[in-house]
Structures are given as C-alpha cells and as structure tokens.
C-alpha cells in the first residue's frame, strides 16, 4: 500500500482531539482522507473508519465519563504500511482494555435489543488486530487492518 508515496505522506499525527462526541466526525474524515490518499479501497476505508470511530466514541463516552476531568483529549496516529494501515489511539481517561472486553454474539445482541457491546464487536470484526496497553496512565489502542490478500508474516 502507498509504495509510491513519500514517507511523510504515510504517517500522520499524533493528532490531538478534544474528547467530545462532536469531534468524531472530524476524526472519521481524517481517517478517510488518509486511507484514500494511501490507496485503500473504499470498503477497507469504511471498515477502518467505523472501527476507529468506535474506539474514539468509547473514550469520550466511557473513558472520560467523569465530567470533572479537565482537558479531556485523545490522539490519533495513522501509519500506512505495505501490508495495510495501523491506527494508534491514545488517551488519559479510565483504563479500558478493549482487547479483553467481551463482544456479544450478534444474534444475542439483536434479540435483546440492547445497545451496549456492539461497538466492541464492530471493532473486533472490522480490523485484523486489536491491541491494548496502558503505560504511565495512558491508554493505547492499536488497530491494524491488512489489505485483502496480504497476510502477516
């Protein structure tokens, strides 16, 4: 992916984002622009956008649920690799391990008519790898999505 682009076109951020729900549209637009510029097919980009949006929405709604937190913010960093795109999202909110979080079975979720958990399910469905770590009070979620036909070595 993006073999023809110079290195600085293949790495964006970390971009700082104020942790509000109204900022999610800007994050999606940023991911869309980056993925398209780096040659990602539209379906690939759409899946990645949705997965990143779910991670960021979780940070705003749950990680920074405490209204007393000042300067609630997160960052989004995008890297285009030959095999796909990697997105790293960092925040200083409550610890939440998205990697370990249970994802509901879709049939159960639909039958229950409950909202919770679908975002986690989507993240795990739409990207190939989800990693979480917390270092010095910072949550770091790394999403990797491989191009179709490219396999990890």
């Amino acid at each position, binding site marked *: 992916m993006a073999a023809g682009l110079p290195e600085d076109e293949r790495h964006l*951020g*970390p*971009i*700082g*984002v*104020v942790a*509000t*729900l*109204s*900022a*999610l*549209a*800007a*994050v*999606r*637009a*940023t991911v869309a622009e980056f993925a398209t510029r780096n040659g990602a097919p*539209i*379906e690939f980009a*759409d*899946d990645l*956008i*949705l997965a990143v*949006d*779910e991670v960021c*929405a979780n940070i*705003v*709604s749950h990680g920074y649920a405490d209204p007393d937190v000042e300067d609630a*913010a997160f*960052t989004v*960093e995008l890297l285009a690799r030959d095999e796909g795109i990697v997105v790293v999202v*960092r925040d*200083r909110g409550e610890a939440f391990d998205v990697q370990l979080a249970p994802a509901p079975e*879709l049939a159960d979720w*639909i039958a229950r*008519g*409950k*909202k919770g958990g*679908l*975002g986690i*399910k*989507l993240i795990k*469905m*739409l990207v190939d790898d989800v990693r979480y770590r917390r270092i*010095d*009070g*910072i949550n770091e979620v790394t999403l990797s999505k491989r191009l179709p036909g490219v396999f990890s070595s």
Partner: protein
Amino acid sequence: MSQVYDGGVRVKSLRMGGIDLSAFQITQEHHARAEVLHLVGSLDAHTSSEVEDRLEQLLSAGAPALVLDFSLVDYVSSAGFGVLLNALHAFGLTGADIKIARISERVYRLFATLGFHKIFDMRASIAEAIDSFEFLGADADSGSGAS
C-alpha cells in the same frame, strides 16, 4: 506525558464550506398511511440521540407506520444501529412497523456486515415502503408526494 498531545492541531469539530459535518438533520413528512423521516448526516454517537428522541416521540404519539429515508445518511455507527434496533423492538411491541428506504450502497454494506440487512425491511423508494405496510382498511395514499 503531555507530549502525547503535542502532535499537532487540536480538532474540535470540522466545518467544510460552511457545513458542520457533525450536524444531523431530521425532517418529518406526514402521509395518510405513514410518517416519513428524512434523515441527513452521519448517524453516530453524537447524533443518534436526536434520532432516538424523535423516534420516541413518534412512538408515544402512536404512529403506526414509519419510513426512514436513508438516502442522505452517509454513515451509521454502533450507537446508530442501537437506536434503530431499539426502535424496531419498541415499535414492534405496539404493532407498529418501521421500514428503511433509499439506503445507499455504502451504508447498506455496513448493515450487511452486521446482518442487519435481514432484520430491517429495506425498500428502494419511499412510495414502495409506504405501499408495503399492511393495513386493514387503509386509505389510498401511496406516498407519491414523497421527495
């Protein structure tokens, strides 16, 4: 640790050509056989509560049939799917029905990823959606006034 946030511009919201990308618009159109909601924008964690409120209003008002015009909906996240599914359940309990009309190919693909294309009744046009409601003694409005 502050360097984490030193990467660049701090984004609050995005405006392009005077249009706020995070805004969502709902207009309601009354038909004899159904209410039609024209939705414009992205149905995400920010905007889905607006749709949820409107759907709850229609539910408490006893609307028997609802068409959601998705032609200008460009995105749906889990929050949006949650609102839609809850509405389908809630309306179903009252014997009311919801149809989705004119969904774009890209948004349809998101529905299909989750298997939601099998749960929601999707129609190519608003008129077709209205005609597909089953009513006893329904009158003749076929929804031809839909935009």
